[in-house]
């Protein structure tokens, strides 16, 4: 069963990660979901696929009141990101889903009505939760053509979607990156294959390097903290992506986004 772990808090505001499900079937990729709560409201970030809904819901309800979830942020359109939408809407039909305008008419195939979706323009925008403002920052083509990350300037955390993701082996299931060099080996193939554009990557690295980020939180794998955030941005900026230079290894070709 997944566990909800608090990774940042200040007053009534907190970030929770829902991660690591040892009971998850092997054919379903492991994902991290995040919950931001403030002022009695919560935002669920990349709520995950339909198959893992029970584990996510159970983990959240063990930690807090899921009734406070008023909104969902979907970084992009993939099934492991947002196919559970219909279930969350069964639970609370008033939930609003923030996502790229590009996917606003695609994701309704997973569920929701005309009122459900809040389309973000390409340049991004603010997402307010309990009076606190989070910033949806563009990450287009990393990997999806309509892709956003979510920055909390107060907590100095950046939810980075598939950027920073790693497909970790069973013996490296820590929640945080402890040994960057050892960890990044499990991120390389994934980034080379899944990140679509060197130009988009460099633009992202340049913008994110100007932000104050204490934690970079990907949707798969471990969370980068402190100096590892800068290490990751440097590493990513130098990695050649968007080119299929050789047949990928079997582990690289698995869809992890």
């Amino acid at each position, binding site marked *: 069963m997944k566990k909800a772990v608090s990774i940042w808090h200040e007053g009534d505001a907190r970030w929770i990660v829902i991660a690591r499900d040892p009971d998850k079937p092997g054919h379903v990729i492991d994902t991290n979901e995040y919950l931001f709560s403030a002022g009695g409201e919560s935002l669920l970030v990349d709520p995950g696929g339909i198959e893992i809904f029970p584990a996510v819901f159970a983990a959240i309800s063990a930690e807090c009141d899921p009734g406070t979830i008023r909104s969902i942020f979907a970084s992009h359109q993939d099934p492991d990101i947002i196919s559970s939408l219909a279930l969350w809407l*069964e639970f609370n039909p008033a939930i609003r889903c923030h996502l790229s305008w590009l996917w606003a008419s695609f994701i309704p195939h997973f569920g929701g009505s005309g009122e459900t979706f809040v389309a973000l323009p390409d340049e991004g925008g603010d997402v307010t939760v309990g009076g606190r403002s989070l910033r949806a920052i563009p990450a287009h083509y990393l990997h999806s053509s309509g892709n956003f990350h979510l920055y909390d300037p107060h907590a100095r955390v950046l939810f980075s979607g598939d950027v920073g993701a790693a497909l970790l082996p069973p013996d490296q299931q820590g929640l945080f990156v402890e040994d960057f060099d050892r960890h990044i080996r499990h991120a390389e193939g994934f980034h080379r294959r899944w990140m679509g554009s060197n130009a988009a990557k460099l633009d992202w690295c340049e913008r994110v390097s100007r932000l104050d980020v204490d934690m970079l939180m990907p949707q798969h794998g471990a969370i980068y903290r402190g100096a590892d955030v800068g290490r990751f941005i440097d590493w990513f900026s130098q990695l050649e992506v968007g080119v299929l230079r050789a047949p990928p290894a079997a582990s690289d070709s698995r869809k992890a986004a």
Partner: protein
Amino acid sequence: MPGAVMSADTAAEAGRAPPDRSSPVARMTPTLTKACTSPPRSELGRTVRLSEETRRVIALAFGVRLMALNAIILARRAGASARGFGVLSGELRRFTGELESAMDELRRLTWSAVATVTARVKQARVAGVLERARAAAPQSERWIDEPLARMARAAESQAAELRATERALQEAIRDADRIGLMGGVLARTARIEAAYGDVFRVQLTEVADGFDRAIASILASLQQLESTEMGARS
């Protein structure tokens, strides 16, 4: 096992406590979830078969309509000796119009059933996942029971809707059968009339045989429709 309610044994096997069934909604839920989950998949398959068979009858009826038009022209060329055959061809043309109307109604009802059944399948899947969430975390019961009860109410209303569509479908199939039998009578009579076609006898008989074969195919399809429908009731 999506959609299944976890029994105490299953929960024990999974190393988890069975869900608490103490609340009224919790006690209702097994029945309600069953209402959501038991019939839809086979219903969907059946409605798809009904739809396919309906499409086949419409295509056959269209073929008979073309044959009837050709037969009317042929009867005119044959003159007085084929007047009866011409009248019958006109009747067969009208028959195809009636049959097509009946099949349109059948198609409308079938798609209405498909829409309801699809909604039920979707609902059943969601109900199954919510049940799993509830079984995974007994503390989530207070949040899960309400949507489950709401879905169960929707499932009951959908079931009533489906029953009404079912009755209308049976009636529409009976209507189509009656029309089909009339077509059979017309085709047989056309063969008799063809015998009086004088020098056009051979050609008229060929046309009448064509009618006969096409109507036989229509009747076979209508029979198939009826047995598919009866299969749902048994």
